[in-house]
């Protein structure tokens, strides 16, 4: 392709990607009536940053943020931990039935969430976990995909690696935590970041399992904001801006891991 054409394509694409974010932030800083003003302005005049304090005041946005962070941190930690342990067993321990069991893990990857959501809700009802943190978190504490990804990483390590440690009398737990895990840090990071984003952006399950406002995560809470303040777009955009900031920070710091993870898995937010 000729260079000039390339730049034109890339620039138009870049603007198209950036503009909705810019407009979101711009709207979030506008006074109520300026939102409808003609001609529309990208740089708000005057600035009304108080939209942020207003939205935080009328809506428990901090609570949503806290819930999202809590759920994301707990489920990511548990997913990485449980997946790494299972992956170690599949990759570094020779036991009977290992192949069959691993196929079972892989098989669960083919089940779409919408097939399990109704019975899962009923199960949570019987466990008395509807509208609670355990109900929110429990379905995502293990990950077959994570097990698969980390197993690949463990298998790429040489077999002699742990032999010396075993000769010295170390057990599997010591080998796992002290020798094997530190060597696959990049894979742990890739999977961890991916699972954090998935949890942070998750919508369908929190929507179904949570009914009281104080337990809502950001996506569900922000979606409700729109229902109650449909015309106050400056407030709605302030809410969406708040909910985007943490994920943008994570993204800017862990971009390599994130892109790699998405390419490997085909999992989307």
């Amino acid at each position, binding site marked *: *392709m000729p260079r000039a054409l*390339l*730049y034109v*394509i*890339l620039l138009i*694409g*870049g603007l198209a*990607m*950036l503009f*909705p974010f810019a407009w*979101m932030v711009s709207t979030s800083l506008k006074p109520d009536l300026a939102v409808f003003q003609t001609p529309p302005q990208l740089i708000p005049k005057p600035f009304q940053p108080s939209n942020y304090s207003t939205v935080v005041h009328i809506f428990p946005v901090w609570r949503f943020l806290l819930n999202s962070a809590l759920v994301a941190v707990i489920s990511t930690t*548990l997913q990485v*931990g449980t997946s790494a342990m*299972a992956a170690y*067993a599949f990759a570094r*321990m*020779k*036991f009977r039935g290992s192949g069959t*069991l691993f196929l079972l*893990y892989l098989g669960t990857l083919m*089940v779409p969430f*919408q*097939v*399990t*959501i*109704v*019975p899962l809700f*009923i*199960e949570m009802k019987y466990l008395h976990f509807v509208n609670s943190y355990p109900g929110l978190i*429990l379905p995502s504490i*293990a990950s*077959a995909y994570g*097990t698969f990804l980390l197993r690949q990483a463990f298998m790429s390590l040489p077999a002699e690696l742990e032999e010396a440690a075993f000769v010295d009398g170390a*057990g*599997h*737990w010591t080998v796992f935590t002290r020798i094997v895990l530190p060597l696959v840090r990049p894979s742990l990071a890739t999977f961890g970041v991916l699972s954090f984003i998935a949890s942070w*952006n998750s*919508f*369908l399950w929190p*929507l*179904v399992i949570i009914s009281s406002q104080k337990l809502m995560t*950001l*996506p*569900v809470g*922000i979606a409700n904001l*729109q229902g109650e303040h449909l015309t106050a777009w400056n407030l709605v*955009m302030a809410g*969406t801006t708040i*909910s*985007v900031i943490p*994920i943008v920070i*994570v*993204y*800017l710091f862990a971009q390599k891991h*994130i*892109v790699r993870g*998405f*390419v490997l898995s*085909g999992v989307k*937010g």
Partner: protein
Amino acid sequence: MVGQRGWRFRLIVALFLAPSLIPLIMFLIVPMLASVGLSFASWDLLTHPRWVGTANYRGLVHDGEFHAALLHTLYFVAGYLPLVFCGGLLLALALHQRLKGVAWLRTLYFLPVVTSWVVVALVWKWLLNPQYGIVNRLLGFVGVQGPGWWLDPHWAMPSIILASAWKDIGFTMVIFLAGLQAIPEEYYEAASLDGAGRWSRFRNITFPLLSPASFFVVVISLINNVQVFDQVWVMTQGGPAGSTSVVVQQIVQNAFSFGRMGYAAAMSWVLFGVILVITVVQLRLQKRWVVYA
């Protein structure tokens, strides 16, 4: 390795597996199996479940709303897939050149992918607001009367498609980029020596060697997007006049608004069947066009 045999070794293996196996069984495998049974029952969670045989599935055959949702879902995918496929391919081809500022652009294009559907849907709902949205106002400046977007039954689905393609184009882009990076430079050099032009190099080298990436994009996009829900729920809730109702939304509403657990489970299996058929067809067709170098 030590301790290959004996109950002690088996115990250790079990301890390593249990933390993931038990939750997977409890919250994935058991619900999945239960879903099969549930789809043959009628249950509102208030009274006892009743076995109804194939009544739920037979009901679906005559359920106009479900058929409409299936059609809308296919409409969504048919509009979305070409956009993210061609758009992602074009961006990847452009970004693959070593130009200045490419890393920044790549970061930018991928940003919507990590943003939640709820945020994307709300932002686009505002951009496409028929009266005050920036899109219609810009159209107004050039003398075009913008459509009613998500408030107009004819434009509601295109609005959702537009927002979705905007969010996912960066995803297909990175898949294509990974594919492009795997093509050896020597092929192009050899082709240039033989006098192949730009278009001929694209048609005879890039496109065939990129076909595994193309295949991945098509299969993954199809599987993910026949389950479209979040953006629809936030932008239109299936409206206006039911013009954007999709299958997963029908499942959610039947189960959690109307208390038809069994009926919703049957729907989810029909959708699973659709996914399965699409995937199998893709795998079959793959032999005709996908080249593995």
